């Protein structure tokens, strides 16, 4: 375990990784629930925090905040555009609204409000977005927010954060309250393994090396970090030493850590359950091509809509499972 060079990973997770059983036995919690738990702490800590819902409070568990702080919870009904612009208005008065919905509705139904009323005036609104990527597997494409990372990354003044597990999602939720300006927080609908110990050094803007390696690097975000760890373990069986980076902040991107990985390992693979267009893969490619081009492969939803199905089966069918990541790493290494 020590020689593998894992960082901040729970020993139970390392054991499951080595046994090839993390994805079957690891889960875990949907990170949307971790967000809701974190809000309860925030509510005590910061009287300016208010929570805005759009009729999915039950799905995200923000009903707990509503029960604990009823005067500071506002349910806007199925009206995300109004919720987001109202959050902007609240923020002008010093409140810190967490506007909560699903990725599809927050970043697409309300995108104009997100852009013009929140990000252009740089208001202190937190956009809390569940059902990121294809994690609402069974719900199908209407509810799979697989474009949110790309859309949010394109907006000036945006900060885009997606924790890979429950603990880092809580840290992200708390850090967002201290961040002066808009923060987009992305959560999973489906459960992911609890990867990290409390020693994880979370800071908005950092990418964190969670596994050492010298032959190649996998850069992953949100739910795909667990897949990346499994892929690295598969490759280790074949004698390859693969670094894994949890790139929880898509914007601003930690270019120093990414370029260091490119220089030291010479091959990169990005992994996201977002569309392959313009998300993490796009962001990393932009950095590499300008500063340190190395062979790179991208794992993501390949410019298509997915379908209903169990989350892990969807990853398999649409080319985003650990097996696919491992194959992409082999390809990148072969191109060195």
């Amino acid at each position, binding site marked *: 375990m020590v020689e593998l060079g894992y960082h901040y990973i729970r020993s139970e997770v390392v054991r499951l990784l080595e046994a090839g059983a993390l994805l079957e036995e690891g889960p875990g919690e949907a990170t949307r629930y971790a967000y809701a738990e974190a809000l309860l702490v925030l509510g005590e800590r910061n009287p300016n925090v208010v929570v805005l819902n759009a009729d999915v409070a039950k799905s995200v568990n923000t009903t707990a905040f509503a029960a604990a702080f009823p005067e*500071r919870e506002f349910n806007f009904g199925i009206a995300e555009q109004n919720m987001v*612009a109202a959050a*902007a208005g609240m923020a002008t008065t010093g409140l810190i609204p967490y506007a909560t919905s699903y990725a599809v509705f927050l970043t697409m139904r309300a995108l104009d*409000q997100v852009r013009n009323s929140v990000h252009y005036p740089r208001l202190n609104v937190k956009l809390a977005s569940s059902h990121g990527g294809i994690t609402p597997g069974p719900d199908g494409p209407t509810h799979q927010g697989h474009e949110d990372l790309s859309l949010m990354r394109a907006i000036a003044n945006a900060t885009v954060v997606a924790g890979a597990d429950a603990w880092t999602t809580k840290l992200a939720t708390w850090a967002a309250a201290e961040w002066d300006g808009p923060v987009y927080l992305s959560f999973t609908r489906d459960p992911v393994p609890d990867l990290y110990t409390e020693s994880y050094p979370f800071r908005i803007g950092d990418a964190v090396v969670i596994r050492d390696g010298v032959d190649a690097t996998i850069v992953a975000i949100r739910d795909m970090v667990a897949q990346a760890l499994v892929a690295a373990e598969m490759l280790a069986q074949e004698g390859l030493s693969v670094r894994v980076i949890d790139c929880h902040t898509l914007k601003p991107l930690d270019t120093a850590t990414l370029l260091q990985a490119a220089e030291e390992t010479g091959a990169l693979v990005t992994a996201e359950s977002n569309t392959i267009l313009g998300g993490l893969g796009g962001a990393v490619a932009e950095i590499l091509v300008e500063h340190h081009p190395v062979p790179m492969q991208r794992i993501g939803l390949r410019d298509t809509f997915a379908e209903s199905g169990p989350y892990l089966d969807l990853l398999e069918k649409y080319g985003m499972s650990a097996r696919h990541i491992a194959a992409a790493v082999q390809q990148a290494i072969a191109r060195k």
Partner: protein
Amino acid sequence: MPDTFKPLTVPELEAMAVRIRCDIIEMVTTAQAGHPGGSLSAADVVTALYFRVMRINPQNPAWPDRDRFILSKGHACPVWYSALAERGYFAIAHLSTLRQLGSILQGHPDMRKTPGIDMTAGSLGQGLSAGLGMALSAKLRGKDYHVWVVVGDGETQEGSVWEAAMAASKWNLDNLTVIIDRNRLQNDACVKDVMPLGALADKWRAFGWHVVDIDGHAMDQVVQALETAGARKGLPTCLIAHTVKGKGVSYMEDVADWHGKAPCEAEALRALADILSCDLEDVELFGETVDG
């Protein structure tokens, strides 16, 4: 604290509205761009708010207890900029920089660039929601400021306006007033031809608002309606201000083409003469800056 400004009387407000209309013409003429029609239609309402009704302090634009104003139909910002300048938020000299590179006066209102702008606006259908958020915040914190939002009549074609209307009623926001600038024209043509609004007052009533129809150019009516807004406990107020697009300028009145077009210098002089009710030879543009 509010400043010590003495609220204007109705005749004084009428005179101020004339001044603001002249500013509007001069601004869009200098910029050779902008939206005169909807600025002129809203001029009387905005004048009454800034020079009589609102509790504000231009020396302290961020005063937490101030009344809030949002021009949701942000393209009409020349009227807002003029009112802010005439009220002392910034020097009147800025007005001639509208839409120029480096100006504090953007083509649509930017709260980060212009003192006194409480909310960025421009993409229609968002200002009432923002005002709703400000009004909710006041209720939550026990503050007694009032939130005023001017919405265009064409703008109410945006569905999000009705999302906000529904919500204001749910939360009993009697500290929120929307003023609909009912000038009956929009960018492309007449509102009734582009997308008719039907029984507009009945619609707002059905959404739970206290609705009052007023002549948006009769200053005594405007003042009376604004000063009694919010008096119905638990009800948000909707003032439907019946106005004329391009009001005060003979050739602009009721002509959709003047929604987003700037007059040339000769047209501007004619406009000033109309607004001031005087002869053409008696007016001049402030504009040595006109045409560079």
